[in-house]
């Protein structure tokens, strides 16, 4: 009986310790099952949410800690960046945390709002505007002048992704233009000349039609309509919308431009690739470029498709296996979307000074170019090392061509959702391009009011 009592008490104690640990906090840190290095980050976490003042006075011997967040694909570069930075600035201890793209923005927002913001945060161009509108990111004009960076040192399209109301909120380190992949073998089979940069749209459509052979699962082109990957849809539509002279918003960003004749024309051209001419795969309405269209191109099922640099670098393997030749050129039409990843400094970053030093270090051409993960946005870095490889030639031409981007307004995410919902309605035949554009415009205008 006594033993039973003991076990009972022990179990209860276990549970109580847990809930008590939660109740009074400070002692919990000592509990046995904690990893060693967690203790370090904890003291930082304890800092009051609002104590924004950076503790720059790195007293002798004690290193100031700074944290930077990046996408998971940077993981292999972390040791090099950390060693290089700490060598240059020995007073700092740098932690680079790599996060998966799944729920990246949620993680960032939660950390910032929870008073635990990283000092430097890498964001996709489309992720910048909404947080700026909600005061979650700090202006970086001072950084630019302090460290002697000029806007014209960056790929122009990429740079524009970080400027709102003439203020720099984000500094691009990566430019991510899409080139157009084409399957030479399919062109040869159809007896067609290879596409060239900025192919006129009517010629593009004609070519795509001739290349399509749906019964064999081969299509002339691929568009993306997936709600799960909105950035891909904007890329896919953008090139046609802008080339036809349309846009999402008016230039002053106060009203929708989706109901202008030009925009309707653009949406019509894009959607009719699916609804009328059927030159794109059947599942397009739910496809993303990266997850669905690129694999189809790798199988030799797509004659033309937008392609990113990472996918291009592994395309040869697939071409060899599936027996086709391929090449790339600049997208059809006159305009294309400029995409970028940029460095930002969140509100509540504990060490702005350290963050700026790190970002400056990161942008140094020889540091930035010393990797083959992403295309550098700093122009000087673009002519170093692997980036002069002929593979990227088409991408640099595409980069120069890509000047348009979605409007940098805090409401962009909502606008984007309205637009993609409307586009899907057109693709599934529930609305005509005219009607859909009209109702998109009404909704957007309601939002901007």
């Amino acid at each position, binding site marked *: *009986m006594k033993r*039973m*009592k003991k*076990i*009972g008490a022990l*179990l*209860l104690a*276990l*549970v109580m310790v*847990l809930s008590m*640990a*939660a109740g009074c*906090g*400070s002692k*919990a*840190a000592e*509990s046995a*099952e*904690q*990893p*060693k*290095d*967690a203790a370090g*980050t*904890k003291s930082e*976490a*304890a800092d009051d949410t609002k104590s924004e003042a950076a503790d720059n006075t790195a007293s002798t011997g004690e290193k100031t800690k700074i944290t930077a967040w990046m*996408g*998971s*694909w940077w*993981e292999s570069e972390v040791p090099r960046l950390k060693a290089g930075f700490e060598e240059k600035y020995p007073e700092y201890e740098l932690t680079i*945390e*790599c*996060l*998966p*793209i*799944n*729920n990246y923005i*949620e*993680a960032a927002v*939660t*950390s910032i*709002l*929870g008073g*635990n913001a990283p000092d430097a945060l890498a964001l996709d161009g489309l992720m910048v505007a909404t947080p700026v509108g909600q005061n979650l990111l700090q202006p970086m004009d001072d950084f630019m002048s302090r460290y002697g960076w000029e806007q014209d040192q960056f790929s122009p399209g990429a740079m524009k992704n970080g400027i709102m109301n003439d203020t720099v909120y984000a500094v691009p380190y990566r430019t991510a233009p899409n080139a157009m992949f084409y399957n030479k073998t399919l062109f040869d089979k159809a007896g067609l000349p290879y596409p060239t940069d900025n192919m006129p749209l009517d010629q593009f459509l004609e070519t795509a039609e001739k290349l399509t052979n749906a019964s064999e*699962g081969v299509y002339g082109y691929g568009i993306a309509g997936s709600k799960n990957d909105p950035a891909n849809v904007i890329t896919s539509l953008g090139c046609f919308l802008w080339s036809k002279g349309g846009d999402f918003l008016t230039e002053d960003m106060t009203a929708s431009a989706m109901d202008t004749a030009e925009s309707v024309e653009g949406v019509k051209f894009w959607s009719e690739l699916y609804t009328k001419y059927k030159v794109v795969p059947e599942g397009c309405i739910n496809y993303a470029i*990266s*997850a669905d269209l*690129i*694999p*189809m191109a*790798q*199988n*030799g099922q797509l004659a033309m498709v937008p392609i*990113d640099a990472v*996918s291009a670098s592994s395309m040869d*393997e*697939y071409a060899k*296996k*599936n027996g086709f030749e391929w090449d790339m050129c600049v997208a059809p039409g006159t305009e294309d979307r400029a995409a970028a990843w940029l460095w930002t400094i969140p509100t509540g970053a504990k060490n702005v000074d350290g963050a700026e030093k790190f970002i400056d270090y990161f942008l140094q051409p020889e540091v930035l170019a010393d990797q083959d993960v992403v295309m550098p946005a700093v122009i000087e870095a673009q002519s170093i090392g692997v980036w002069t490889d002929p593979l990227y030639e088409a991408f640099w031409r595409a980069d120069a061509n890509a000047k348009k981007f979605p409007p940098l307004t805090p409401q962009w995410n909502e606008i984007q959702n309205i637009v993609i919902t409307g586009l899907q309605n057109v693709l599934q035949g529930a609305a005509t391009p005219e009607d859909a554009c009209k109702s998109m415009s009404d909704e957007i205008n309601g939002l901007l009011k």
Partner: protein
Amino acid sequence: MEKELKKKSSSGRRVKHLAIWLLAIFIVLFSVVPFLWAVSTSLKDEVSVYASQPTLLPHPVTFENYKAVFTDSNMMKSFGNTIKVSVLSTIVSTVVAVLGAYGFSRYKFPGSKTLLTSILFTRLLPRVTLLVPFYITISKLHLINTYSGLVLLYLVVGIPVSIWLMKGFIDALPYEVEEAAVVDGCNAFQVLIKIVVPMVAPAIATVAMFSFILSWNEFLFPLLMAKDSAIRPIAVSLAFYIDESGIKWGTLMAASVLMSVPAIIFFSIAQKYIVAGLSEGAVKG
């Protein structure tokens, strides 16, 4: 007459057996085909993963993906972390659930019903609106990037379901045995551990499985609160195989197949307790 009856019942039984078998086969196929697909994908090389004519049998068979997972030190560390945290949180959650359910089932105190109902209602709060408040609470407790933080989280996420289910089972138990024990001089804890726990063993095993799976598969909370690679669980590490240029299907599938092995082992152990109830069932009543 008797013969006829026998004949009838045996043919009836045959129909019943057939029906059960068909149902069983359907359920197995439905459960397993997507998994077989995962296994087969994990054995394909990168260039043949996403073929236009998908094949169930990999050709050629390659173990490269498994090798890649095994040599990925972050991945292996995550495996260990997940096992640690899942076992720990399974124990804690199950103990708390049994205690709570027993308390709610056998004692009435002012507000007990309200408390019980509100525990269930916490499930109604959408996760996304919980993220920021949870993060702030955990961070105020200094539990970001700690196992304790994760265990506490899983406890809170899973406990409503566990308590309600446990309570259902305990409610169904006859009181007489417990009363007899009380007469014999057992106190409440002794009754719980000596009498109640053995009687609801199958339910405890099931609730333990529920808690285990919860901490095994949870993605969003650990992504936010256990970013540090020293404690990062495997569900988060898996997401590293999905990036903006697409999904690395081969390695992703290899890792998830590997990941399901410990869970299946845990299940077969827990199942023994559920099935053990089968033979003891007669004694129970």
